[in-house]
């Protein structure tokens, strides 16, 4: 089965999954207990006003008409209008989207680079005290939810030592520069990014440590490692040129999968550090019954997750020459 055919197959699955995701989204927000108006219309409006608002947002047509209209909007990237901001959802979300991507991107990069190296080390020193200690640390990190890590870091580094700001993306009052890069490369941004990114890094570091360790142990038991040792290669060469290179293969898939899942997790970190990202926006809009914004944020997050899953399937094929998939 050639590579192209496999990627084509995975692409068809992607479209199918994406279509199903959009439909679920549509159904979820449309068919809710009680009357939709109770969800997002400010209380204290008279019956007539409520009907007018319904009409304005086209919620009185039969469901399937709404559905086609909804799909049409999505294809043009129009996520509808937010009630709270009274502006296009997509305009507000674009900035927040990148805030989340930068936050999770940094924490995952830190988590995986340290995690893989530490996991590889644990796999190599199998059966020693260091391994037991490393495993213990890995398990502790894995069993504490993001907000607990966040709060601990907050109380230590912010309240006690005051090294870092409590939250937010920039110093209060500083104006956000228009162009994209200067916003994200300024020192104040990094200064604010430190704590939330560290929280994410600690939370997401546990998995690569444990996975890399078991993957290393598997590889080290295989025949070719014994041959490489018999060849008189230095243990450095055996570990890094052969053992780690083979153990990285399964990690590629996991990295992409977890990157998708971490988008969901950003909610909690952004809430603890009031980081203006998609996640926090979604929680706020749900609290304030602003359903288009909530749906828009949810749609963006879902798209990132599905895309990442697709990349996960493809990544493995490129890295492992023997896999002509299926």
């Amino acid at each position, binding site marked *: 089965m050639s590579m192209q055919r496999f990627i084509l197959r995975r692409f068809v699955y992607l479209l199918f999954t994406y279509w199903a995701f959009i439909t679920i989204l549509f159904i979820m927000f449309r068919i809710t207990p009680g009357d939709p108006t109770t969800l997002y219309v400010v209380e204290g409006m008279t019956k007539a006003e409520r009907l007018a608002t319904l009409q304005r947002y086209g919620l009185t047509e039969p469901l399937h008409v709404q559905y086609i209209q909804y799909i049409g909007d999505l294809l043009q990237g129009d996520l509808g209008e937010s009630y709270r901001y009274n502006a296009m959802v997509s305009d507000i979300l674009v900035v927040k989207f990148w805030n989340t991507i930068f936050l999770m991107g940094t924490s995952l990069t830190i988590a995986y680079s340290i995690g893989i190296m530490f996991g590889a080390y644990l796999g190599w020193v199998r059966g020693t005290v260091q391994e037991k200690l490393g495993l213990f640390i890995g398990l502790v990190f894995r069993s504490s939810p993001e907000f607990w890590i966040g709060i601990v870091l907050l109380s230590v580094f912010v309240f006690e030592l005051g090294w870092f700001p409590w939250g937010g993306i920039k110093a209060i009052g500083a104006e956000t520069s228009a162009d994209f890069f200067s916003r994200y490369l300024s020192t104040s941004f990094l200064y604010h990014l430190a704590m939330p990114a560290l929280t994410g890094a600690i939370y997401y570091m546990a998995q690569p440590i444990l996975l890399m360790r078991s993957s290393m142990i598997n590889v080290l038991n295989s025949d070719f490692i014994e041959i490489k040792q018999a060849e008189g290669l230095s243990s450095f060469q055996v570990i890094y040129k052969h053992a780690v290179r*083979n153990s990285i293969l399964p990690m590629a898939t996991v990295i992409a999968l977890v990157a998708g899942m971490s988008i969901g997790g950003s909610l909690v970190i952004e809430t603890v550090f009031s980081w203006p990202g998609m996640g926090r926006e979604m929680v706020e809009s749900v609290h304030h019954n602003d359903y288009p914004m909530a749906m828009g944020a949810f749609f963006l997050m879902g798209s990132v997750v599905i895309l990442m899953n697709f990349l996960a399937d493809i990544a493995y094929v490129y890295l492992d020459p023997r896999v002509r998939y299926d």
Partner: protein
Amino acid sequence: MLTIENLEVHYTTDEGDVRAVDGVNLELDRNETIGLVGESGCGKTTTAKAIIRLLATNGRIAGGSIRFEGTELTALSDRDLRRDIRWNEVSMIPQNAMNGFDPVYTVGQQIVEVIRAHEPDTTKRDAMRRARDLFEELGIEGDRIDDYPHQFSGGMAQRAMVALALSLGPSIVLADEPTTALDVVIQDQILQVISDMQDELDSSMILITHDMSVVSETCDYIAVMYGGRIVEYADARTIIQNPCHPYTLGLRNSFPDITAESQELISIPGVPPNLIDPDEGCKFAPRCPFAQDECWEVTPTPEEFGEGHIVECHRAEEVDMLQTEAAKRETWVGEERDVGVQRDQRRVRPVETEQDSNSHE
């Protein structure tokens, strides 16, 4: 060239120390081939791997000496052993060549890697050319050095592995069941290729296998191993035609010979010995139909019978009686001798690598 004197290798397991090799003596001279024959758990692979100290993490050389060209290998530091002996002087051919290569690098890259690891001043281009020549000599097209291991068939992968093993012109090649996983036609070709290259490079070989017919055709000397010791050692013809130890006789009886007109296969009852702190006495006693009290108490010492024919058995002198009796079926398969009798013996499988379930023991 290589002398091994009462070598002992132990594996530590939670149930106690497995004495996988329990006092082995062996001599190997230049351009000579010795066959280590025996069944699973008899210590043949461990003995060979102990030479280049390639033991599992829980294995260690507990005693005895291994001298190669005068230098004592067990005393060498890891670094020296790795730099001067491994692959330089002693290389290895594994059973399953496909798994012997790293799947994510091409075969050529892996040969170049080992050449440059031992000869840092050889350029990549020269090393690749040497790999290409080796391939041609072994009957593989030169430009297949850029293929990945999984693109090779069973036979071709084994030829590539022979190329890798001979890439530094070693003095000794350890072949661990090199053809067991192959079909008979390809097996024949591979054995032919190995012996041709051996003569050309003037190197000697230790062939590890359970297949008596392969050994009788390729080896000059044969050492039959059981329970971690060499029970009989002689030149190939003597071991096949005039064996003396009951275990060797039993092995001959259970081995189907394609030329024999009508041959009745007779099996050896019982199960392989338990190597965890074994008590004194001959390890084959529980399965040996000629065992006497002496065999159960005193470990037999190897004695020489005729020129270079060493046997480790208390009743070795009664060789004629042993040979005539062993040929009869009832000696081995009497009613009470059936598998059931051995039930009480605590049976723990030794930890040795040759124990993995997919090898054709």
